[in-house]
């Protein structure tokens, strides 16, 4: 479904991704964890070509992209990018458009779907994320949690094969996190393929099929939530888990 092969990304002299290999099967939820600066965001951004990898290859749904430092035509980038839907840490909603317009924008402008049809579908999506009564609100009228749910609906609007989430709840007040995670759980249950960067370890335990621990631009270890959280193989993983949840590992035993 997604296959990442020997992916490298450097910013100038700084090598941020040092050869990532990862397979994600259809309908699976992968949670990426790792310390700050380890390259999690960069990896997600490479998957939807907001950053162009320095070398390696990405295959999504039989569309293969090879990277070798040569410039890739915009058309190719745009079409490959539509395979994935991106949910940003700080939502990045379009402030001059209502919730509904935010969700309709992609389908209407990019896919050329007739407005009426796009509107129906956008309403359905907003319904699904629990915002049926907010469709005509502008982003500034919405709470952070509501904005993020519009963000999810907007990303779903382009009918991506894979949804990418970059710390979707880390900008939210704690009481708003639950609603967003619930929407993501629903998506996972419907069989959406998802790659999620998050520090919400409970979500990771409950929803992830696989946890990937990244440090210094490398995959240190991956496995089921049980394997990673209760039997981490690597010292670095153990130290990271202790740092974010000093006692949680003990609680599990």
């Amino acid at each position, binding site marked *: 479904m997604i296959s990442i092969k020997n992916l490298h990304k450097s910013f100038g002299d700084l090598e941020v991704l040092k050869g990532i290999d990862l397979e994600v099967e259809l309908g699976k939820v992968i949670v990426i964890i790792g310390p700050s600066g380890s390259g999690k965001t960069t990896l997600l951004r490479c998957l939807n070509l907001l950053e162009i990898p320095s070398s390696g290859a990405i295959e999504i749904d039989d569309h293969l992209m090879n990277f070798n430092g040569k410039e890739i035509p915009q058309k190719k980038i745009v079409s490959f990018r539509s395979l994935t839907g991106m949910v940003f840490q700080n939502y990045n909603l379009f402030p001059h458009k209502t919730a509904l317009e935010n969700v309709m924008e992609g389908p209407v402008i990019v896919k050329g779907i007739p407005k009426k049809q796009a509107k129906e579908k956008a309403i359905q999506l907003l319904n699904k994320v629990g915002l049926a009564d907010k469709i005509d609100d502008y982003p*500034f009228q919405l709470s952070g949690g509501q904005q993020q749910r519009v963000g999810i609906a907007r*990303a779903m609007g*382009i009918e991506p094969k894979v949804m990418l989430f970059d710390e979707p709840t880390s900008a939210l007040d704690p009481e708003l996190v639950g609603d967003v995670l619930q929407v993501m759980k629903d998506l996972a249950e419907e069989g959406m393929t998802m790659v999620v960067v998050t520090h919400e370890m409970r979500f990771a335990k409950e929803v992830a099929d696989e946890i990937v621990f990244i440090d210094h631009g490398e995959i240190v270890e991956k496995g089921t939530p049980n394997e990673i959280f209760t039997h981490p193989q690597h010292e670095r993983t153990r130290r990271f888990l202790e740092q974010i949840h000093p006692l949680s590992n003990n609680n599990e035993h």
Partner: protein
Amino acid sequence: MFLLNSIFQDPERFDQLVSIAQSSLLPMVKGAIKYTIPLTIITFVLGLILAILTALARISSSKILNTIARIYVSIIRGTPLLVQLFIIFYGLPNLGFTIDPFPSAIIGFSLNVGAYASEIIRAAILSIPKGQWEAGYSIGMNRTQTLKRIIFPQAVRVSIPPLSNTFISLVKDTSLASLVLVSEMFRKAQEIASTNYEFLLLYSEVAILYWIICTVLSIIQGRIESRLDRYVSK
């Protein structure tokens, strides 16, 4: 003081001034309607188009376009408007291009507005957070679509206040067109004053007319801004 003294000591002089003020009003308003206002509006529209093109050239990746735009802005901003007008009206005939006063003024002012407004628009575009571009890209838009649908509408909002200032300055700057023989409002005042030597009265009168026009424009500006503010939290 002299004027005030003479007015208060001499009621007849007062009546005379009132009648000059009244009779000069119509020619001046005509000058405004025939030249000042059309010159301002036409120039502003042409200038804005030029400004948008220049701003796009400045943010484009094309080195050539970028350089041309830079040189244009630099020349216009680095030389006096009056000198630019003189070059177009009095200078170009030496090369065989004779342009009438009104078109000369339109060309000169448009080039001027284009340069200043392009910097405003460019700054507004650059002020839109990078995340907005990325959000546009992330739903499958290309660069042009994102610019047109996402960035530009937000940049317009940001640039309305400074552009309104440009517009209001332009109204006043059109008085310079009198020096390339456009019969706009200020030139009318000059013409009338040169016949009766009531300089203070006539120039004050024309000042008031400019002030009224600018005040009305400021009110309209306020309306537009509050309409465009509808998606921004207060």
